[in-house]
């Protein structure tokens, strides 16, 4: 079957999308060495740089979050594939500075292997770099071993916090400490209604019967969830998910939180607002204050229908970083 996508040669997907992206926002981002998206206006070398890596195909993540107050660079792999360790090393070399670099790695084996290889290589070259591993997926339960807890969209608010702290002049250890604090009190859960097509092959990634949805699917359509279940209403879905998230990070009455409904691709913003509404109300009943929120497509899975719901506990310092000015193409704060 012909794919219902606007594409040229499938082999050119990643270079073309990166070129288009940087042409669309040339005052904010530029493409370096083919696969490294960097700020168009690099910040002062006296400040810690924040870098991440990950496969393409999840737009706007991750490169959409490169910009003032957020990431300094994103190292991009092919569709759904981690970039090679040597490419990550190139970015670390470009940003090498006495203040140091924080490398954000999402817990997916390819990202971890290539990220760790880059860290090994960087160490040999005397580059000052520390890493943080996001693994906030709660689908396998919070007691599950770290290997089972994938890094989902939570890397984005975490990058916002790290980026803002770095831009504010915090040291590498401080940035890491602040980001780790958030890392330990954030959680994401995904739900899928329709799986997507892999844009290179045109093959469906996994599948779901017509009247089924699945909570807990990974962001490449791989499983990990509770298995297919009958489609629930928006309110039931939101309530089920937000309660699991709240339990996972143990938010309680009086706490402040960040709530994100992050669309997977085909799910409309209309639906996301309806889901957000219920999740907000459940938290409100629990006495949890939603202090900051976003409802949009942040980390997508091609044209999959579904969303990731994110909940993170915040204190005034974390909230300050989340609200700080930023000028990445897909996260602008005045």
């Amino acid at each position, binding site marked *: 079957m012909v794919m219902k996508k606007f594409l040229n040669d499938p082999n050119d997907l990643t270079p073309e999308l990166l070129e288009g992206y940087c042409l669309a926002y040339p005052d904010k981002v530029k493409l370096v060495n083919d696969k490294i998206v960097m700020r168009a206006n690099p910040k002062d070398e006296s400040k810690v740089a924040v870098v991440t890596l990950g*496969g393409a195909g999840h737009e706007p993540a991750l490169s959409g979050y490169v910009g003032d107050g957020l990431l300094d660079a994103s190292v991009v792999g092919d569709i759904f*594939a981690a970039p090679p360790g040597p490419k990550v090393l190139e970015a670390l070399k470009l940003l090498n500075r006495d203040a140091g670099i924080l490398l954000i790695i999402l817990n997916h*084996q390819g990202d971890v292997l290539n990220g760790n290889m880059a860290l090994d290589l960087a160490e040999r070259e005397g580059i000052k770099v520390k890493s943080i591993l996001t693994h906030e997926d709660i689908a396998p339960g919070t007691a599950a071993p770290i290997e*089972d807890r994938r890094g989902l969209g939570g890397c984005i608010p975490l990058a916002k916090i790290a980026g803002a702290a770095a831009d504010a002049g915090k040291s590498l250890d401080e940035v890491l400490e602040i980001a780790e604090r958030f890392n330990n009190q954030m959680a994401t859960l995904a739900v899928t209604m329709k799986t997507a097509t892999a844009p290179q092959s045109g093959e469906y990634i996994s599948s779901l019967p017509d009247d089924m949805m699945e909570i807990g699917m990974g962001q490449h359509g791989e499983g990990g969830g509770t298995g297919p279940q009958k489609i629930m209403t928006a309110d039931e879905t939101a309530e089920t998910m937000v309660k699991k998230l709240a339990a996972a990070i143990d938010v309680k009455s009086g706490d402040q939180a960040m709530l994100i409904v992050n669309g997977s691709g085909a799910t409309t913003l209309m639906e996301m607002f309806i889901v957000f509404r219920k999740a907000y109300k459940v938290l409100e009943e629990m006495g949890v204050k939603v202090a900051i929120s976003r409802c949009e497509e942040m980390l997508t899975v091609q044209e999959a229908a579904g969303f990731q719901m994110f909940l993170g506990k915040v204190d005034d310092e974390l909230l300050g970083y989340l609200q700080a000015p930023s000028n990445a193409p897909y996260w602008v704060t005045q």
Partner: protein
Amino acid sequence: MSNSLTKSDFAAKISAAKKKIEENLEELNKLDAATGDGDHGTSIKRVIEAADTAAQGDASFKDMLTNVGMAVMSVGVGSAGPLIGSFFMGMGDAVDSEELDAAQVAAMFHAGVAGLQKYSKAQIGDKTMMDAILPAVEAMDGKVDIPVLFSAAAEAAASGAEATRQMTAKFGRARNLGERTKGHMDAGARSFSLIFAAFAEA
């Protein structure tokens, strides 16, 4: 084939592996689709093509292996790059001459496994490429005849891959599917059974 392995012998084996992988591309993608994201055929094809290209230059046997390792690592295909790249890099650590006897070939592959194990904690039974690689390399031990060494490795890799059907995946994307992976052969193990088969035939 004589009873020693030179750089060009090994380069020829890599070329043969490339051909075999290309012939089985679809099957490998399908196997990965059942338990992962359906790209393993395409990935391993790019890996082995990069290896084949890097094996051509006129470096020493040792440097050729390091070059192959770096080239494979730079391919950018998710997990396969660093895993297989460190396998070849590791092999390079054990090679210091231009002509290896059977024991040295076995040592080279054991060093490859050591390199690979720096990055992978997967054991026999975890339903990964390790289920083909580890038995294949074990089977090389004690062999004196190089063709016999490679035939034994190919046979062990094939039955190792076959055995993954009964296993539950413990690593990679497939891990998320848990019990649901049973009944499917692991794509990476199948790749290495093809690669070792090509090594034996070339």
